[in-house]
């Protein structure tokens, strides 16, 4: 067993941390949080400085951690322009890879993933947006909800229903849908509790014509593609969780240090510090284990779901405890933003409830 990063990875982590500390100052983070604005310049800079290096998934995970550690809104914004890429990479045609992925990998365009629908959520197989074949095109109608990068992405990997006859999840297919296609409309959702620098929108699809070559893989296999993708992306969401937790912990320690020993040596405070540190350590290890399996092409969906669930809970737990131990000083500092940001992790990319069902079903299946 080996629990350490390579020297190269350690160096990369320092670089990502340095970038985040330099670019994500408290003032900048507060500004984007207040204004609910997507930080396009920061995204470009992170790309230009190779803080985002898609050639090595470990580096992606590390960058997510270190950037979210400084600020989740900015960190997620800078690392999410590729969101959904693996679906095309694994299942798309060469044409789609060349046309759509290349500009994304060059930092020139942004993409998104559009699965969830209004009133939908966890029940992916129950989605209602339809794609009807007409000649060499598909006509898409419906709506998507809570779509990250919704109002800024150039295109989306979108899951829609192509058949009403098949069993629920066999009737779904994935397409690349460009935002400039006529009939596509995005309404940015304002007023989120946290991660307010990230872009989130509701999409309306009104007779959007999509050429048949934009079908990803085979018709009817979209559900499977997306579930495969989630088993990848959940690891990166776990990375967000570790980052937020670590960032809240850093800030709590720094406030405690400032307050001095008489305050920080109280047992209640010390116990809380130990609880936070232990849970972060545990979340980190599960996440790295899931990542190690995935990045070595032997993914374990049970451990991946554990990582997502546990890291999300850890982010929420640590942000809460950090406020508790720092009190008035904490709540009037950046920590309050960490508290708001953390909560989304228990909701997106599979709520904690869904993760638990996945874990449990896999285990009860194995046990039989």
């Amino acid at each position: 067993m080996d629990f350490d990063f390579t020297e190269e990875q350690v160096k990369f982590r320092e670089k990502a941390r340095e970038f985040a500390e330099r670019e994500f100052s408290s003032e900048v983070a507060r500004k984007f949080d207040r204004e609910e604005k997507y930080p396009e310049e920061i995204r470009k800079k992170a790309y230009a400085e190779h803080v985002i290096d898609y050639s090595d998934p470990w580096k992606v995970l590390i960058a997510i951690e270190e950037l979210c550690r400084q600020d989740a809104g900015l960190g997620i914004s800078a690392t999410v322009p590729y969101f959904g890429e693996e679906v095309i990479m694994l299942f798309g045609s060469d044409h789609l890879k060349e046309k759509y992925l290349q500009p994304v990998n060059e930092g020139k365009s942004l993409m998104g993933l559009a699965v969830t629908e209004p009133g939908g959520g966890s029940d992916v197989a129950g989605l209602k947006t339809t794609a009807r074949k007409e000649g060499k095109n598909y006509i898409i109608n419906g709506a998507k909800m809570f779509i990250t990068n919704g109002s800024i992405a150039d295109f989306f990997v979108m899951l829609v229903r192509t058949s009403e006859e098949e069993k629920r999840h066999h009737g779904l297919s994935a397409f690349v849908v460009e935002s400039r296609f006529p009939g596509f409309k995005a309404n940015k959702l304002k007023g989120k509790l946290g991660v307010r620098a990230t872009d989130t929108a509701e999409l309306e699809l009104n007779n959007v014509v999509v050429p048949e070559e934009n079908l990803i893989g085979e018709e009817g296999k979209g559900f499977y593609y997306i579930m495969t993708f989630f088993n990848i992306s959940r690891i990166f969401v776990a990375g967000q969780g570790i980052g937020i937790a670590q960032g809240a912990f850093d800030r709590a320690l720094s406030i405690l240090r400032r307050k001095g020993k008489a305050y920080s040596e109280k047992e209640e405070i010390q116990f809380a510090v130990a609880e936070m540190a232990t849970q972060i350590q545990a979340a980190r290890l599960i996440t790295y284990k899931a990542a190690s399996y995935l990045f070595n092409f032997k993914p374990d969906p049970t451990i991946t779901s554990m990582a997502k669930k546990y890291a999300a809970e850890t982010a929420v737990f640590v942000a809460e405890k950090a406020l508790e131990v720092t009190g008035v000083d904490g709540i009037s500092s950046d920590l309050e933003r960490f508290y708001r940001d953390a909560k989304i992790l228990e909701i997106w990319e599979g709520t904690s409830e869904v993760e638990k069902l996945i874990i449990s079903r896999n285990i009860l299946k194995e046990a039989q």
Partner: protein
Amino acid sequence: MDQDSYRMLRENVDEFCARNVEPVSLKMEREGMASDLAKKSGTQGFNAAIAAQSNGGSALDRESYLTILERAARSSPSFAMFLLMQNSIAGRILEAAGKTGEIGEIASGAKTATVEFLSLNESSSAEYSINVSNGKATGKLRNVIFPSADLIVFLHQDSLYLARGSDGTEPLPVLGFRGLGLGDVVFRDRPVEKLSENGGAKLIMDALKNAGREVSAVALGITGRSVDMAVEYSRVRKTFGRPLKDYEPVAFQLAGFKAQEEELRSMIFFSSVQDGYIKPLATDLARRATKIALQVHGGYGYLEDFGVEKFYRDSMTLSIYFGPSRSDMRNLSREVYGEESGVI
């Protein structure tokens, strides 16, 4: 008052909130509380609910005042916090200082009031740089809840002072009770009036200590409404073809929180248990309940529009502003042990 009167009062508060608070609740979160709400609330007698009638107050009994706070918190915890600040903190202190004129202004909603008290919390290390001489104050108050209030009571060298307005406020990141805000308050040669010579900190601490049940009532309202919203949402929202409420963990958790809400209510309203026992339980319950309520709403819970995330923010903020701080817990420990304990 008899049970019918309390029921009528509750209905009155609910009706007032439905008409005047609910519709502006979201706006209040975003832009702060509008001054006309203070006036409307004044006409109901809520702003000086417990002050003596001779001072323009309503002189309501404890159960009535607790009822007002609980029901107000269900619509807008910010509004409830406004009432708590006017009555339990500023009101009590000003009344004790004999400032009957100001009580009258607060009662009508003509003026709003705040007391800087977070500096007395042992978790605060913000340093003050206030200088008072010749009846004028210069400097900065840190971490003031409701910094835009008309009347600002603050502590300086253990004396209490009253300032009418300020020379500017500097907003701080504010997790909860956004209707009131949080910020630093700047004075520049601001005329101030001394309310008490020495013992000022004790006056504020006493007001806070006496507000234990009242803070708990706010927590109760936050708990009740957020859980009710989650219960309603779980009836209508379907997943995998079934309403959320059909799933055990959803139904059981929410039902469990309704049970705890009832438990807390019986403790606040009907038991003689001391405030020190109640407040930590109340704020803790509010925090746990609002977290689940938000989670049941899924992505929608994360949007301000749905009105449930504010309870999540406010419950946490309530527990920081009013405890259970470690000094509360030490007080509670002293009661239990009958001697000093929990000092290391």
